[in-house]
Structures are given as structure tokens and as C-alpha cells.
């Protein structure tokens, strides 16, 4: 067996991409009880030939439990893990990063710069350690709903939702940008239309920790009034929440980027977990903002709701939507049109977000 192993190792040295040789090496190491090396070569074989069911199965079988370290490993043979325990893509040693022991590695410019960046971050973290737990907020995207040719709701007095949304979002951004350690981005900075898909693209572009979309409400019932806050959920929390979501999503008939489908694998499960956690954090943010706004604004408190808003669902972070009042209500339209009321909303929201960012997490 030792002779066979020596020959096969020599063969693997000559043709490192030969899946057949790696499969045989896996069997040989298995036969002599060297499971770690067996796993390495079975994994290589399965990676090089995705139809090699036997090798893949042996990886799954052997890695069900700890595989003890062995002392006669060749460079690279200690690399044991494909992390996701689903026996999907076995790991490669082709990459210069995979087995740094195999060849001396000369750092690239990017690697040197990344190292400097990491050292600077370590220094910063050392100077300002964060001991708190919970969801962290460092980057906020503020979204002024509608814009350009899409006015959104329009009041009887002519006040356009897009203008109120923009004024509040811009003012809020100005205030938040003064908060140390917090970065703020706007989906639009003037009166132009931004497709819904592009709004969440901005949030994803900057890896935002929180997405806040500003809107004004409208109803065929002119008496309807008050402000409310929405977070995302698969089902609407009420008929009214469903109606509002349908109105805000109405532009979707123009938006082809809504798609679904796909099977379930481990990353799907992790995605669901992540989304659930983000929706939970969003619900908590919504509650905080609603409570804060209700304590300051002269509008009735309509509470927090959940519904399936496209602009919230597609964001890869907690996302909420504020309806800051009814433009269909004459009194609220008049107030929402005043710079004082817009500033009050902006200050209140900025204050609440600032506290969430600097506080104990969500």
C-alpha cells in the first residue's frame, strides 16, 4: 500500500488536475486509515469531476464527525473543509490563497493596501471599542418617495407628495450627516424620477444598515388623517396596510425586475433567516420612529403596520416606510406644506435614527 501511495502521489504531482488519481489517492489513504488526507483527495476528485459521486459521498461520510489531524501531510492536504455541510462545491487549492504553503506568495498592490486598511481599522477599533450587542447601524439610506413625472399623491390644494418627501428626506440627511460615525445616502437629491428597483439598488450599493422611505398618504375618505409607519412582511397586517402597499407598489407594473423562484439550499435557508431578522429589526425601528413622531407631531397616531412593499422587500437590510400624513385631508395638507412641519418631521426622524445608531442596537 505504501508503494501504491508513493506512486499515486507522484502521479498527482505530475498531473495535479487528474481527478482519477485523486480519487485513487482518496481510497488509498482511506485504506491506511489516514482520513484527513483521504478527504482532501476525495474532495479534489469531486471538484475536478462533478460526476464523481463516490468521491463526493466519501467526503460527506468522512466529514460527518471530526477528522483527526495527521502528521505526514503534504502542502495543501490539511485543507479539509468545504464550509457549507452540503457537499456542494469542494474547495480548490488552485487559488494562491488556498494553500499558502505551496508557493511563496508575493503580495499584490491590492493585498498591501488591504493590509494597511485593516491595520487602520484595528487601530480605530482599539481606540473606540464597541462592547454592545444587537443590530448595528452605521449607514443609512433615505429615500424620498416618487419624484419627477411621478408626483405621488396630490392634495386638493395642489401640494405634491414628491415635494414633501424630498424636503423632509434632504433635511433629515443634513441632520444625520452630523452624527459621528454615521454615513447617510439619498436615493434622489432633486425632483427626478427614480425607479423602485433603483432605490433599493442604492441601499444595496452602499451596504446600508437601514433604509427609510418617506411618503405621504392619501385616501378617498377625506376625513382620514394621521401618520403611520410600515415595515415589510409577507402578508399585510390589515386591509388598510394592504391598500397602502398596493398604492405604493402601483408603479410595479412598469418594473420587470420583480421575480422569484428557485430551490432550497443552505444559502436559501440563511437568506430566509437574514430576511426574517431584518424584518424584525425593521419592525422595532418602525415602532421607535412611530412612537417618537407621535409624541411630537400634531397628527393622530395611526400606529405601525406591516405589508409587502416592493421597495422594502428588495432591500438587504431593515427597511421602513413612513407615511407622514394625509394629503387628501385638507388640514394635514396645509401643515405638510409648511417648511416648519417638514423640518419638525425631519428633526424627529433624524433624532430617532441617531439614537438607534448610538444606542443599544435593535
Amino acid at each position, binding site marked *: 500500500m505504501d508503494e501504491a501511495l508513493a*506512486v499515486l502521489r507522484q*502521479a498527482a504531482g505530475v498531473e495535479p488536475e487528474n481527478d482519477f488519481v485523486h480519487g485513487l489517492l482518496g481510497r488509498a489513504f482511506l*485504506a491506511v486509515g489516514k482520513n484527513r488526507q483521504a478527504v482532501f483527495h476525495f474532495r479534489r476528485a469531486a471538484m475536478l469531476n462533478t460526476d464523481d459521486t463516490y468521491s463526493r459521498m466519501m467526503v460527506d*461520510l468522512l466529514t460527518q464527525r471530526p477528522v483527526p489531524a495527521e502528521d505526514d501531510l503534504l502542502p495543501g492536504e490539511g485543507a*479539509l473543509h468545504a*464550509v457549507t455541510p452540503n457537499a456542494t462545491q469542494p474547495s480548490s487549492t488552485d487559488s494562491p490563497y488556498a494553500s499558502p504553503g505551496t508557493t511563496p506568495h508575493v503580495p499584490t498592490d491590492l493585498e498591501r493596501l488591504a493590509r494597511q486598511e485593516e491595520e487602520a481599522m484595528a487601530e480605530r477599533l482599539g481606540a473606540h471599542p464597541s462592547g454592545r450587542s444587537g443590530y448595528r447601524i452605521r449607514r443609512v439610506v433615505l429615500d424620498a418617495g416618487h419624484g419627477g413625472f411621478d408626483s405621488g399623491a396630490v392634495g386638493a390644494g395642489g401640494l405634491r407628495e414628491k415635494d414633501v418627501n424630498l424636503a423632509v428626506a434632504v433635511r433629515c440627511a443634513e441632520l444625520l450627516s452630523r452624527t459621528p460615525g454615521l454615513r447617510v445616502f439619498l436615493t434622489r437629491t432633486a425632483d427626478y424620477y*427614480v425607479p423602485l428597483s433603483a432605490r433599493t439598488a442604492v441601499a444595496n450599493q452602499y451596504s446600508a444598515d437601514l433604509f427609510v422611505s418617506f411618503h405621504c398618504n392619501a385616501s378617498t375618505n377625506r376625513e382620514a388623517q394621521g401618520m403611520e409607519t410600515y415595515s415589510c412582511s409577507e402578508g399585510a397586517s390589515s386591509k388598510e396596510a394592504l391598500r397602502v402597499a398596493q398604492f405604493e407598489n402601483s408603479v410595479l407594473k*412598469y418594473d420587470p425586475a420583480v421575480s422569484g423562484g428557485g430551490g432550497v439550499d443552505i*444559502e436559501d435557508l440563511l437568506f430566509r433567516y437574514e430576511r426574517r431578522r431584518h424584518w424584525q429589526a425593521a419592525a422595532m425601528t418602525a415602532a421607535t420612529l412611530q412612537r417618537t413622531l407621535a409624541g411630537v407631531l400634531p397628527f393622530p397616531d395611526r400606529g405601525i403596520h406591516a405589508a409587502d412593499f416592493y421597495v422594502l422587500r428588495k432591500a438587504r437590510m431593515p427597511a421602513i416606510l413612513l407615511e407622514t400624513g394625509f394629503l387628501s385631508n385638507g388640514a394635514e395638507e396645509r401643515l405638510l406644506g409648511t417648511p416648519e412641519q417638514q423640518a419638525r418631521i425631519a428633526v424627529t426622524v433624524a433624532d430617532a435614527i441617531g439614537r438607534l445608531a448610538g444606542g443599544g442596537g435593535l
Partner: protein
Amino acid sequence: MRQLRSAFPFLLALLVLAIPAWGTVQPVRTVTSAQEQLESRILQGADLHYRGQLDAARVIFEEVVVGQPNNEFCLNQLALINAKQERFEVAAALFGRVAAQSPDNTFARIWLGVLHLQRGETAEAQARFAEVLRVDPGNAGACYFLGVMAAVEHDGVSAVRWFRKAQELGSDDPETHYRLAQAFLSMDMPLNARLEFERTLAINPRHTKALHDLGWVLYNQGFGEEAKALWQRVLSLNPDDAQARTSLAKVHNDAAFAAYEQGNREKAAALWKMTLQYEHDNKAARYYLQKLDRQAIDSE
């Protein structure tokens, strides 16, 4: 490359290896034809599973575990198939059976943790992953999932630590590099993020999420053309990738609007037409192209 197989020493090696490797994994007292049949069925089940034929694979493993109720590999495979088919309770029960009978079966324990995450039970999941690390301190999988949990909390520092630990323990999985890159982004460390996205792609050049996200890192650093090339590459791998389409549409729409604002209508029109190549019904591009057409007619 097959020339190796004609070499004498290699044939010798083959002869030496003409042993039932399967039997060495699960030692049997006597290799019987029934045993061989069983092993063949397990291999068949695994093959079907890996090829995505989950129903057929499940039937085989269900049969096998009737005769071998303590076969951990088959129980784990059956549990995994049930998880993939979203029978999470059945999966948890099967993984639980393995965990109860085998104190060191880390695979079952890792998956029990993942199923806890799926249910939003983070404390229970964390306890499972910690248990795995007690059983096997070198388990990169447990470190990876703890990293995922930290990353979901946008706790970049902890996420980086866990993903790095997973790598130190031998993981060179593209997902670890990809998630490490995202953790760096959450800490405003774009250079490290870029490096890790590139490492992801060195291992798996078809990793569309890494291609897409690397595109934004480059775009944010001022490399717009490189970013667009990466998103185009995503579309060449998957023409329906909504994220890449959205990103390409967004940057073209933004550029078009900027050109329009500067009075360069020709350029704006060309860019909005490109926007529509990526989002056929992009409302902004359609509106402004119609507006430009109307303006052109009026000026005539």
C-alpha cells in the same frame, strides 16, 4: 493526461487499490452480497441526491434506514433531503436522532443549528454551533455559521473574526470569502472587501453574487466601466439576474439623466436606450425618451 494510466507503476497502484474502499469506511464482519447491494443502494441514493432528484433519493434512503435504523450517513442524507424539500420538522427529527446516538456527529449538529436559524431561534442555533466547536474545535463550518449570525446583525468585527477563523481552520469555500467580503463592506473596508470578492471569484469564477457586489465596490471607487463589465458578465452567466439588470439600468439611467441635465440630449437618449436593454419597461427611460422625441418633433 491519460497516458499515466498506461504506466506500469500506476497499474500496480490500481491493483493494490482493488479493495472495497466502502468496506473500509464501515467495517463489516463479512462482505456479503446483501451488504454489497445495500452499499450500492446508498451510492445510488447519494447520486440521485447530488443530481437533485430528491424524491427518488429520499425513497432509497427511507428504505435503507428501515433496515439500518442507526446508519448515521443515511439518516443525515435523508434529513438533508427533507430539509431541501422544506420538510423542516422531519429533517430536525432525523438530525436529532443522529445527534442523540452519536455525540461527535458534527454534521447533524451543524444542521440542527441551521434549522434553528431557519426558525429564527438564534440562541438555540448559537448553542448548537458552540456545541460543535466543543466537540471539534477545528470545525470551520461552525465558525462560518457563527460568522453568518454576526454578519446578519451587521456586527462586522465579529463576522470578520469568525470567517477568518473558518479560513484558518482550512476552509477555502467561496461562500466564506464572499461573506467575509460583505462583512468588510459593513465595516467600510472596501479594499479588503474587493480582495475577498476577488478571492471568491478565483475559486468560483461563476459566483454571480460576488461578481455583482464587486461591481458596486469598483463603481464606488470610480471604476464605472469595470463595474459594468462585471455586471455584463453576470448576465452572460444568467441573463435573468435581476440584480445585475437593476444595477446596469440604474447606472445608465443616472448617466442619462446627468447628460440630459447638461443639455446633451443625444447622449442622454443613447444611454436611456441602453437602460431599456436591461430593464425593458424602465419607467424613467421610457418617459424621458418620449419626452426627447416630443421635443425633437416640436423643434422641427
